[in-house]
């Protein structure tokens, strides 16, 4: 049981590490949105602050 709990905690921390490694949720939201829009062929609307 103790091993299972340790595994659960390790799994959670590993998942946080995965998110950190790939920068999930860490990008500037407006910059990312602008990049997605531009990549889709839409013109850039306004300056991102």
């Amino acid at each position, binding site marked *: 049981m103790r091993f299972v709990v340790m595994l659960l*905690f390790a799994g959670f*921390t590993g998942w946080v590490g995965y998110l*950190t490694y790939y920068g999930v949720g860490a990008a500037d939201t407006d910059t990312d949105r*602008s990049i997605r829009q531009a990549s889709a062929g839409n013109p*850039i609307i306004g300056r991102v602050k």
Partner: protein
Amino acid sequence: MTGAAPQTKTINCTSCGAGLSVLGGGRVRGHVCSYCGAVMDAHEGYKLVQQYQNMPRPDTPFEIGMEGRIHEVDFTIIGIIGNVMYEDGEAYRWTDHQLYSPTHGYAWMTWNPEEGVASFTRRIRGVPDVMDADRVRLHGETYRVSEQYVSRIEFCAGEFTWPPKVDEETLVTEAYSSHYVLAVNRTRNEEGEDEIEFALTERMNPAAMQEKFGIEVPPPPPPSVGSRIGGYLTAGALTSLALSIVLLVVLSAMSTTLVSRNYGSDQGPHSLEFTVSTTQRLHAVEVHTPVRNDWAYFDVNLTRLVDGDEVDLAEIGREISYYYGGSGDDSWSEGSQYTSIRFHPPEIGQYKVEVLRSEQGGSAQPISISVVEGAISMVWLILTAVGSVALLVARFFLF
């Protein structure tokens, strides 16, 4: 139980007539009736010398007549004394058991149910050498004086080498070595003279001591549900904390600076090209200018280079401002000399970033620009580590 049952002599209590076993040897002086509390003088034909009633029975699993083997010597419990001491208004109780061996004489076994401690004590003849105010030496061992207290008898039954008295007080001074406790016991006799005895005490395993005297020791109770959950949480939180720290170190070392350049104080635009080899990881354009009590505003254009053409991806405006003041405990600062723009590149390939200082408060400062692959935000890992520590702390309060 060990050993064969001895042939016991019996007497009748001279107060209540109850039959009492005589288990001790010739040095037994006081015999206290377990039924009526009469104290008799064994050397004076069991003459009644005192009568006690309603003595509080001490908490002990041992009984008079039990036999056990300690250090390869067979002992019989011949008397029980309940003691109490007071410290800061709180009572501490323990039970002494007078032991007798026909071959090795008399000794004591002490039982402290509150602390779960058992000990074996022999009186010693030698006098310890006083080294200084805090230390004494005996048989090559150094003892450090630790505490002094007054113990008082509140219960007695059985046979003893002296006639015990309820409320009889002993001033005990204890000195500890790594193995033993040396006790100096000071009492006042009937003539009003101080009597000093030295005793050497050895701690014993309580369960082992019960087994020696044939008491069936119940197995330790299984840990409570709360204790088990607390143990699991501790193990989990420690795992999480250790892994968070490892990940913080490892991931910090896994960032790569793709390009970095320093520029003078001209406003730009300063242009850097870089190659993106993965779209999975976060990239960051980092701009630094050493403004002090000042600000500057930057226009950053991110462009993708496709077959010689430039495809605008984002136009970003960022202010850098840094102010500070005061000194010593009153020093303060706000803002930063850095800014970073974090993004996920849409595709692998060539990119360009242009940085223009479009506005500024005071004097123009040099600019540094870097592009980093694998930029990471540590906030979630740090929160996980902090959460693990909080769980460890909470575990001690909750379970």
